[in-house]
């Protein structure tokens, strides 16, 4: 019996701390669940800020838009993300904005949500389903091609190159990897790809380990490196720094953090392909709200990719991409 009492007390305590939110039953009010792949990457914080910006702009007295932000309990775990989608669907939110961890595994919960009357806008990575409102994302293939162009140019069209892949089954990074390889092979046939089959895993830590192993093996030969996302770029960068090779190898990464900007200033990183996650979060929420309010929306919306190099780093456009106004929207 005491077990029960204790459990109850601890729950009530937590409830008190959080003071339960009032769920107004106003029919004009829209509740949008935004579900990222994880919450620790800075990339997702920008999406979060953009989503909140859209919610603020689209709210009007009597027709508020509320954004609920929730990632999978274990980052990068498909099963956990499915549970979050199912939870929101049975809770009955107005709509879902989802960055699916897998292009197939999330199809069933998204389709079940639609049957239950909860529509979904997909952001960031594709989902193989016709039951979605819209797909709002970076043109990832183009991003990979931009990376290949920059690296090919840096190497003068010849040299030995490593591609460190991200994780198995992630559609967006696979597109970038494919775009990179395609462009490299077509445009720079004299560049030799010495390793393209290694996966870095989900975190900076696993990426660093994979990078160290690659550098141990190919460190003396390699002249150029491409990484397809934030965690792989960060892992490779710190592995290069530890090995004393940073700056000696031409290195092009993907996504933006302060660490990468500093590395570019120190000429340790020679280019980053930058998406516009702030815009992605903004457009994602805007699209689902417009659709819920009865407007027709585009089925595919591109949110843009840009190559930032040490040369154009200080330009105004680059700075806007590198420093989205997070503080304004995230407390």
């Amino acid at each position, binding site marked *: 019996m005491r077990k*029960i009492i204790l*459990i109850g007390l601890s729950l009530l305590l937590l*409830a008190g701390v959080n003071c*339960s939110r009032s769920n107004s039953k106003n029919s004009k009010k829209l509740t949008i669940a935004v579900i990222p792949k994880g919450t620790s990457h800075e990339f997702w914080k920008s999406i979060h800020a953009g989503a909140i910006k859209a919610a603020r702009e689209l709210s009007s007295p009597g027709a508020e838009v509320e954004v609920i932000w929730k990632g999978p309990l274990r980052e990068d775990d*498909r099963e956990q993300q499915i549970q979050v989608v199912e939870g929101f669907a*049975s*809770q009955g939110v107005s709509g879902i904005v989802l960055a699916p961890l897998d292009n197939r595994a999330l199809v069933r919960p998204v389709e079940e949500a639609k049957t239950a009357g909860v529509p979904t806008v997909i952001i960031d990575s594709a989902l193989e389903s016709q039951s979605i409102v819209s797909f709002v994302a970076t043109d990832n293939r183009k991003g990979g091609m931009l990376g290949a162009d920059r690296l090919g140019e840096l190497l003068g069209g010849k040299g030995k190159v490593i591609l460190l892949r991200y994780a198995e089954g992630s559609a967006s990074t696979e597109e970038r990897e494919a775009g990179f390889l395609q462009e490299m092979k077509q445009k720079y046939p004299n560049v030799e790809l010495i390793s393209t089959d290694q996966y870095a895993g989900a975190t900076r830590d696993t990426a660093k380990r994979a990078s160290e192993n690659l550098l141990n093996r190919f460190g003396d030969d390699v002249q150029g490196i491409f990484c397809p996302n934030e965690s792989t770029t960060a892992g490779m960068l710190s592995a290069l720094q530890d090995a004393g090779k940073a700056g000696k190898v031409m290195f092009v990464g993907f996504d933006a953090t302060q660490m990468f900007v500093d590395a570019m200033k120190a000429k340790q990183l020679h280019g980053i392909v930058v998406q516009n996650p702030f815009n992605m979060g903004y457009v994602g929420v805007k699209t689902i709200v417009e659709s819920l309010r009865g407007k027709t929306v585009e089925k595919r919306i591109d949110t843009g990719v840009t190559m930032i190099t040490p040369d154009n780093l200080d330009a105004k456009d680059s700075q806007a991409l590198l420093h989205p106004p997070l503080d304004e929207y995230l407390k």
Partner: protein
Amino acid sequence: MVAETKADWIVSGSGWARAWLNRLAPFLGLVLVILVFAILIGEPEKYLSLKNLRTVLAQTVIVAIGAIGMTAIIISGGIDLSVGSAIALTGVITALGINAGWSATMAISVGILVGGFVGVVNGMAITRLRVVPFIATLGMLGVARGVAKGIAGSQTVNMPETWANDLLLTVPKQSWMLVAPGVWIAIALAFLAAVVLRRTVFGRRLFALGSNEAAARACGIATDRLKIYIYGLAGLLFGLAGVMQMSRLRQGDPTVAMGLELDIIAAVVIGGGSLSGGEGSILGSMIGALIMAFLRNGCQQVGWPNYIQEIIIGALIVFAVAIDRWRHARLSAA
């Protein structure tokens, strides 16, 4: 000797009323969790709607089926850390089988058998190589995960649509089923396992082995062979959990269920299982699994962030076990 151990496990209370109260304790814990969240959410009819119950039950199935096997292993004084990897491996194998044109029944059977094989290998390592279960299964955690990634070519394995995809459909295709077919399978298996553990010689031997291995051996129980059976049978269940996972994802995913073994062990422990062996019940473990699923679902619907869920579940495990220890101390003092 054996019978005494068992009697001690059930309850050494004075009367049947107290025995029932003790057995119902975790159940009341579950009811309390549900009630608290129904109140917190402010819309109990939504939290307790058939729609939400279906969702939570379907989400519990994988942990529940795993917990049936884990309960047997923990009662016998062992542990299995390789469950998550075994689930990934069997899911991938089943998906590859369906891809290769096997019938779904055939592919699922092979998946389950592979789970059993992994269990038998664990059992062999523990008995023949004399490696403690923690280490033997820790090794298997890596091996099975690696094999899964290897045979899947480091990719998810997508497969054509078969009835295997419908096992954990939140809203079942046959509406008379009410909940997903997998939920009924889990309930049937739990019932079967409870009967085997309580009413058969095999079940009694298992408790004896976990209570005092040396005494069990002295009583003529072939403990090594028994351990291989236990890990093998539990492995079959882990294989089935892998099939369920594949059905939910509609693909074989070699990276899925990382760390799931901890959820499964937590379910058994919340339900009264003791890691030193000799104690545990199927009903308790099932309730442990449900408590965690309802907690997760409830936290999400109240709008609490993930870290609060993790703190609550972590604290709950320690609480449940502490209370259990305290009850034991009181009983042995009396």
